[in-house]
């Protein structure tokens, strides 16, 4: 089977700035593939190359077997693209925007209504409202409809949930699952690490380099340390205390707990608990926990930093 997206050794420079540094990845047909990393990691540059708006300096990128440099017209017909910022005409209405995008791809809304029905139904009551007057959540739904109206086989979503609240983000992911069901391949980028676990496979990207690829479960399973969730009062002095502690490799806050990494076999739960209690902290709890993607990202980013 041809991979839906194939990236081989792609680099891109802007002047002296290395935006992408020998990136390789492969996306299988019908999967939701996440590109997870902070601002400035190179996510948008990679998207622009894949949707044929930018040429790589070197390396090769294919979308459904078509070359981004040579076959760009064919690729453009087969993909949907929702860029991070602009994708709607603010002074056109909801219906006009959708018509416009359908016409651009030589089709009509009527012809593809089934394809977008579930999402479009939620914004159809506002069909005569200008896009500029929509709330953030509705704009996002309209942009998604516009990217889907020509039945693309691969969908590129560049940070669709940035700045979107936790509830709307959840709704958006439910829409993505429905789109996947229809057989569409989805490449989605996000700076929110908690969205990583919602993808079938992910690549963690930082400073133009992919630091890990796999299923979220595989990446979590490869975390090299033992991890404890520690809480106690007062919380911030406890964080500083743990960071100074000789057996602690890393310590970061995660909501109401601090995640404390130790070498396996070095420090046990009891040792850690006693250490903290002896230092005078109150309401101390220590429990062994599984790492999440954010723990892994920080660990891998650190390793990568030590290599270079």
């Amino acid at each position, binding site marked *: 089977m041809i991979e839906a997206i194939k990236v081989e050794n792609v680099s891109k420079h802007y002047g002296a700035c290395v935006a992408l540094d020998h990136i390789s990845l492969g996306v299988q047909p019908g999967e939701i593939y996440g590109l997870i990393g902070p601002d400035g990691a190179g996510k948008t540059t990679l998207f622009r190359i894949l949707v044929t708006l930018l040429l790589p300096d070197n390396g090769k990128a294919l979308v459904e077997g078509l070359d981004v440099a040579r076959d760009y017209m064919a690729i453009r017909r087969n993909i949907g693209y929702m860029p991070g910022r602009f994708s709607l005409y603010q002074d056109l209405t909801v219906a006009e925007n959708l018509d416009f995008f359908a016409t651009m791809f030589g089709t009509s809304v009527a012809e593809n209504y089934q394809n977008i029905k579930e999402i479009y139904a939620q914004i159809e009551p506002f069909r005569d409202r200008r896009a500029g007057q929509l709330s953030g959540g509705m704009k996002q739904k309209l942009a998604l409809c516009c990217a889907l109206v020509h039945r693309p086989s691969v969908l590129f979503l560049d940070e669709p949930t940035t700045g979107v*609240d936790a509830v709307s983000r959840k709704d958006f992911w439910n829409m993505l699952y429905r789109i996947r069901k229809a057989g569409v391949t989805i490449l989605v980028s996000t700076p929110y690490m908690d969205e990583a676990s919602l993808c079938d496979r992910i690549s963690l990207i930082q400073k133009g380099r992919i630091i890990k690829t796999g299923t979220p479960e595989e990446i979590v399973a490869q975390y090299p340390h033992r991890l404890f969730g520690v809480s106690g009062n007062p919380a911030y002095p406890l964080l500083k205390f743990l960071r100074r502690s000789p057996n602690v490799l890393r310590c970061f*806050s995660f*909501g109401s707990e601090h995640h404390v990494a130790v070498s396996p076999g070095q420090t046990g739960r009891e040792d850690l608990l006693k250490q903290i209690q002896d230092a005078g902290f109150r309401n101390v709890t220590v429990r062994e926990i599984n790492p999440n993607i954010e723990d892994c990202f920080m660990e891998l980013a650190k390793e990568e930093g030590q290599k270079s």
Partner: protein
Amino acid sequence: MNEKKDIIVVNELTKKFGNFTAVDHISFEVRQGEIFGFLGANGAGKTTAMKILCGLSLPTSGGGTVNGYDLSRDQEKIKRNIGYMSQKFSLYSDLKVWENIRLFGGIYRLSGKSIKEKSDAMLRYLNMTDLKDELVGDLPLGWKQKLAFSIAMIHNPSIVFLDEPTGGVDPETRRLFWDLIYEAAESGTTIFVTTHYMDEAEYCDRVSIMVDGVIADLDAPAALKQRYQAADMDTVFRQLAYQAKRE
């Protein structure tokens, strides 16, 4: 039980745009020196309320005070006495690090001597002394955010407003940024912060959650989690925000 004074007092604060009520009779207090999380779904009225608290917009009715200054009458005094930082706008990219510091020091009417002293101390604290001649646009995002936060406090405001300060920042830098927030709070500065990261809501002393223009609930994270029988703030937030009716 509450020995510290309230630095923000808001009473029945309301803002209407035409016949749309963005902020609907909200009342709350923020205590001196606390980290106060101001949460809400997109469109719940957070930004509108925050603009009024920063002296950038007038209430339609109701009101309150920030650091003792009246929201309706003392807007200029409020602006002078608060710090403000947002992810979208904070520093000038085409000015150097030291030029940004001097610019904001000047805006807040600090003397040349005082700006020099503050600038040196700030750069030492941030470990950025070697970077003072760099253009801000060339700094990594994390450094920019830290610098922006320190510059927002260059005039020693008793309260600083942070509007989604950590959006898009990498996970480690995001946490180091919170270290700065803790340090500032420990030295007595009140922090008023909005965020979409629910783990950051847990770092606040108290959190308010806005839904459809009203404050749906306000308490310490631990109390909220208990009230909604939720394991984390994300669950609390979803339970409340799903009640939203308006789009």
